[in-house]
């Protein structure tokens, strides 16, 4: 295992920039997740690390080795695909042994290493089966064993769980995470699934339109999102557009004055609030900011209620209240009191 560094990586197709100046350092044994909506460049970044796409600019270093110009077969990156990509004409054991065979490991020496890899993914005894005789989850475990058997410097996971059904996804997720920790594998995973990313990662990279928007831990991304995109992408946020009128003062488009510690500078801005920081009813009265809001729409989601309210004609926002016993579900048209502390919101310059 080794550390991996990606420096100023860029990929352009003609005028189209798919990956734009991406720089990421991944520590030895770290589990890094690239997260973003489809088309954000996360898969292209991973494929450049694997060597399937030549970068237009930038450098990739694994350990002390610059691999930027190396073909995929000389990079020693273990790769797991969304579609498993097992060799259908080979048995499970042959699949797992393939990387060793390519490294000229003698057939006798391959046997214990294949057995060990299969044991790690809990598929001991499946050696002679063919991929088509296995379930999706088992196939993905074989793919993982195949990547692990060759003792890669870096493990690359390309949406490895997307083809599995929900229950299996939970299981395999935990298995991959445990294995990664146990073996100290430097890992990059690409996913668009936020929950998956949050539960598995040591650190996350949020990408959008080819750019890195923020790199950080789960807590950093949720509590200190670097921009409006991250605030909306990681967890949910209520957004209010308006402007900063004075330090600590924010006025919405509809003219609602809000006290907000994070408001500095001047000009058009967006206030982002985490729904759970917004109090409703009696609790709201004592807070610095409290307003009468009209319920526009309420959705019952079991443990929580999603409520869409308007502060004035122009300002709509989302809140979530826990579904506690004795709390009546607000009806559209009702007026409720909502409020939040002065330090609850984050303010971002308005994006064009």
């Amino acid at each position: 295992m080794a550390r991996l560094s990606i420096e100023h990586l860029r990929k352009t197709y003609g005028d189209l920039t798919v990956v734009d100046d991406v720089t990421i350092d991944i520590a030895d044994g770290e589990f890094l997740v690239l997260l973003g909506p489809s088309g954000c460049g996360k898969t292209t970044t991973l494929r450049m690390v694997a060597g399937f796409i030549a970068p237009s600019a930038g450098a990739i270093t694994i350990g002390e080795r610059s691999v930027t110009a190396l073909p995929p077969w000389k990079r020693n990156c273990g790769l797991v695909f969304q579609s498993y990509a097992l060799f259908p004409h080979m048995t499970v054991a042959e699949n797992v042994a393939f990387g060793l065979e390519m490294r000229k490991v003698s057939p006798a020496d391959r046997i214990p290493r294949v057995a060990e890899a299969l044991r790690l993914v809990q598929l001991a005894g499946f050696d002679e089966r063919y991929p088509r005789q296995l379930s999706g989850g088992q196939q993905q475990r074989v793919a993982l064993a195949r990547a692990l058997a060759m003792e890669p410097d870096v493990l690359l996971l390309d949406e490895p769980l997307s083809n599995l059904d929900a229950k299996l996804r939970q299981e395999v997720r935990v298995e991959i995470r445990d294995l990664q920790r146990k073996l100290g594998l430097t890992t990059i995973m690409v996913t668009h699934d936020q929950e998956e990313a949050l539960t598995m990662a040591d650190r996350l990279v949020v990408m959008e339109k080819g750019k890195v928007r923020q790199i950080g831990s789960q807590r950093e991304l949720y509590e200190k999102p670097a921009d409006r995109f991250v605030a909306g992408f990681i967890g949910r946020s209520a957004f209010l557009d308006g402007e900063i009128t004075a330090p600590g003062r924010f006025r919405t488009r509809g003219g609602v004055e809000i006290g907000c510690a994070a408001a500095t500078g001047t000009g058009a801005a967006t206030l982002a609030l985490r729904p759970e920081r917004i109090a409703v009813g009696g609790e709201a009265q004592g807070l610095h900011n409290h307003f009468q809001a009209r319920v526009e729409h309420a959705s019952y989601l079991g443990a929580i209620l999603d409520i869409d309210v308007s502060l004035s004609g122009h300002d709509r926002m989302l809140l979530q209240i826990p579904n506690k016993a004795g709390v009546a579900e607000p009806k559209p048209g009702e007026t409720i009191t909502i409020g939040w502390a002065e330090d609850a919101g984050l303010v971002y310059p308005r994006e064009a």
Partner: protein
Amino acid sequence: MSTTAPEPVAGARTGLAGLLVVPATLFVAIGLLGPIAILFRYSLNQFIPGQFMVDGLTIENYVKFFTDGYYLNVLARTVRVAVVCTVACLIMGFPLAYVLARTQSRFKNLLIIAVVLPLFVGNAVRAAGWMTAFGSRGALNASLMGMGLIDQPLEIMFTENAVLIGIIAVNLPFMVLTLQSVIEGIPRNVEEAAFSLGAGPAAMFRRVLWPLALPGILAGTILTFILAMNAYATPVLLGGPRFQMMGPLVYGQFAQQNNWPFGGAISFILMTATIILTVAAHLIVQRRYR
């Protein structure tokens, strides 16, 4: 009652499926198997010059073929030409089929049409074209001599090489299209997985692409081999009168010598040789790679 209700529907559909197979089956039976059976019967008849065909039950036509060096030579030449053409088609066709299967170009359909385009020209027309190109005063020799590269015209026409070139040109599209459809069914990810596991292009080809493309390779080689074994127009027009292959030999016995029994026997030998070689190749390949 309710459980048996769907039965008639399912039964009716099975009956319909059976019915749908009938026209093709009848056509094959009447159009192919019938004549072959008659031909086989003729091949056991006797040929007496002047009397055309005498009913009999003799293997003398087959004995004649296998005891005459001339005919054995024709068979050997036919097999040789067919094998060379098939191997050449495979070697040239695979890379082309791979590119066609993997291209992301929006002109892909045009490329495929370009591969099929040569088939729009019939064998005879194409062979006539080769004749004007490769003749001793043809375009190729005239150009080379005009440029002073050669003194004597190259002898291409009426040689085995001319026939090989001609048959390869006809068969290549069949090979390419067969391989292309099979390679398209092999996920690109599988190749990438092999690369990531340390396989270079050659190892990836040998251990992954070739075995997975094997059904297409078998289908393509069988198709081109059968076409080459039975080639008629190309050997006649490009090989000339002294270059005999099995196809023209059969025709000669029927149309020129009027020797139907011997013609029938040669037909059967050709058919049997084709089937045996095809099946043998199939078995060898399957044993080696499965």
